[in-house]
């Protein structure tokens, strides 16, 4: 695993590799089950959870419906509160702004609060290219960074690692970048957390510049909100002289009181807690307390593209709680890396194509990385109808290939099917051919499905893509029409057909 998602294969290829990793599946199954159970327990405590979801969805939807106005209000409030506001159209612009601020202060290192937006834009790599070291301070992000690994979950990026692996990473790498892990480090989580505390404290105490994201940005007050657990966020937001926050433009809510449903929905949905240990809110600069120079980078990077999509727009309501990952049967079996993005799981399967378009093969594979079981919609605290968006994005992928000079195999098959179904005689011939195929396949197949019907194994050629991951029931040897003719619609005895299912 190298520390970048660039050049990842399409989902089916990456998923096949992940499925073969039994350690990964064990780690994931344990973690997702634990977090699902915790979430279910604290959600059940809340009377009117459904109404709370509706209220949360409405807050975000209202903000998105008039996003331009809210963003201008936010900019004005931030400036009034003493912050400097930057607008970034894409990753490159955003990274350049952050690097520029660090350079202006002669900083060759920054401390970072865990932030999806900065991971999305590849900020650490961009800063490194400028000779600026970016230290991740969230424990899981530290594990990922020291392991030269990639995040595999939105909330717990090192979910794919168990304690023994974490100990090994700390012992091997901590000494290269600061205070080494203690010699007697065991794999007890409390010992590992203690090692991280010691390792990072030096960095917190000397850092001049910090970089954060924001969970919410309140337009009318210019307040940014960071929700966290470990206190590394508070360290970064409070101790350094300079703070740069990279904020996706969809993080805006209109008013301070709109935070109410969000702060009730987020912790219960994400970590399964009534409230996360620490939430920090701040508006610009507070004289004598905290950073005295505050920058806010408002990031588009495909968000206006998603906003223009009538069906997909709702994905921008996402508050990155990751509840959809933890209930997804596909995610639980393959983990986050197979999605080839910092946004894995069901939300990643719609967010990536919405932000980036479906022009590359990897992104275009994501809307298919789902069984459409609907569990993700059930748990989403802001009621994003992920299955509907998945289907819509599948249509977008198909549409993007309509002008291809060499059509995709599915398109050829669909065209042939249309031709066959449009004429009764053709359909009859096709059914007869399929009956013959069914008899042949039935002889060769080794799999028997529930109900006694046999299934084809892995088919050769273009069909391999379909049968590689599924059982294909062998076609019935006799079609309905043939049965009707033979038995006169069931009036004659029906005793001799072979392969009745």
């Amino acid at each position, binding site marked *: 695993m190298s520390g970048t998602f660039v050049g990842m294969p399409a989902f089916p290829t990456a998923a096949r590799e992940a499925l073969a990793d039994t350690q990964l599946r064990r780690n994931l199954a*344990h973690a997702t089950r*634990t977090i699902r159970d915790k979430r279910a327990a604290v959600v059940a405590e*809340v*009377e009117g959870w459904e109404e709370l979801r*509706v*209220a949360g969805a*409405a*807050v975000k939807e209202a903000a998105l419906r*008039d996003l331009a*106005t809210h963003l201008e*209000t936010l900019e004005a409030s931030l400036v009034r*509160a003493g912050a400097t506001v930057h607008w970034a159209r894409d990753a490159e612009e955003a990274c350049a702004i952050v690097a520029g601020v660090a350079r202006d202060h002669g900083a060759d290192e920054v401390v970072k609060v865990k932030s999806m937006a900065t991971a999305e834009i590849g900020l650490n790599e961009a800063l490194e290219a400028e000779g600026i070291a970016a230290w991740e301070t969230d*424990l899981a992000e530290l*594990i990922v960074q020291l392991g030269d690994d990639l995040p595999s979950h939105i909330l*717990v990026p*090192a*979910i794919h690692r*168990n*304690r023994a692996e*974490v100990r090994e990473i700390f012992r091997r790498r901590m000494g290269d970048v600061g205070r080494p892990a203690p010699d007697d480090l065991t794999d007890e*989580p*409390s010992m*590992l*957390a203690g090692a991280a*505390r010691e390792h*990072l*404290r030096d960095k*917190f*105490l000397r850092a001049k510049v910090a970089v954060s994201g924001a969970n919410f940005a309140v337009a009318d*007050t210019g307040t940014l909100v960071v929700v966290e*657990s*470990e*206190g*590394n966020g*508070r*360290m970064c*937001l*409070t*101790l350094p002289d300079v703070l740069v926050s990279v904020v996706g433009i969809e993080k805006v809510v*209109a*008013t*301070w*009181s*709109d*935070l*109410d449903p969000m*702060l*009730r929905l987020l912790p219960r949905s994400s970590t399964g807690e*009534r*409230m996360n*240990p*620490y*939430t*920090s*809110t*701040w*508006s610009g600069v507070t004289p*004598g*307390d*905290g950073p005295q120079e505050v920058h806010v980078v408002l990031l588009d990077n495909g968000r206006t593209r998603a906003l223009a999509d009538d069906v997909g727009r709702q994905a921008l309501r996402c508050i990155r709680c990751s509840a959809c990952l933890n209930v997804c049967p596909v995610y639980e079996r393959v983990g986050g890396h197979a999605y080839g993005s910092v946004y894995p799981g069901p939300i990643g399967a719609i967010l990536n194509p919405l932000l980036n378009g479906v022009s590359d093969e990897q992104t275009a594979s994501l809307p298919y990385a789902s069984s459409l079981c609907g569990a993700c919609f059930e748990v989403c605290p802001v009621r994003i109808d992920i299955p509907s968006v998945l289907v819509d994005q599948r249509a977008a992928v198909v549409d993007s290939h309509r002008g291809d000079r060499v059509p995709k195999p599915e398109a050829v098959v669909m065209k042939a099917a249309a031709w066959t179904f449009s004429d009764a005689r053709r359909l009859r011939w096709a059914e007869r051919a399929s009956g013959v195929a069914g008899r042949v396949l039935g002889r060769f197949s080794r799999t028997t499905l529930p109900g006694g019907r046999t299934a084809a194994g892995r088919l050769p050629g273009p069909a391999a893509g379909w049968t590689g991951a599924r059982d294909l029931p062998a076609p019935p040897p006799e079609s309905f029409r043939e049965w009707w003719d033979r038995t006169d619609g069931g009036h004659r005895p029906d005793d001799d057909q072979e392969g009745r299912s």
Partner: protein
Amino acid sequence: MSPAVDLPPAPRAPDRGDLIALFVERVEDYRALVTRCAPDEVGSVVAEVLGSASSVVPPGLGLEVPGSVVDDGWTAAELDAIDAVVTRARVGIAETGTIVLDHAPDQGRRAISLVPDLHVCIVDATQVVADVPDAIALLDPARPTTWISGPSATSDIELDRVEGVHGPRTLHVVLLG
């Protein structure tokens, strides 16, 4: 600014009968420590909690803490050498077991309640409200706020909750009244 559209109201938690009991239960559920005492006992309770620990207090604490230093813009490194901090709070939330600081003079700068390893937080029973919406309504968004639910914690390793990563590893709430 009023919202552009009418939003459906977020439901409120039913007012729990005994807010204070719920607050204590939920704060303790986070493995924070809670001591209840009468307002005139606060000095001796705080002294007992601190024991021999060195401590820093905000300039407006309004309580004599023997042996403590008053925050005078100490650097982070200087604060790192101090064991404990004593602050007051703005509001307590029963439903979630949360205390919120708005860093007024009785609570001090954000750094003092962050760097020392033990945070002793004095909350008046009259400051406890039912749920998050009540707290939101009381707080001033122009001020920085810190919402604290138990000590610093992580669940990043196999989802096992571990107290104490970067913030104070012990939170001791002294509840008055």
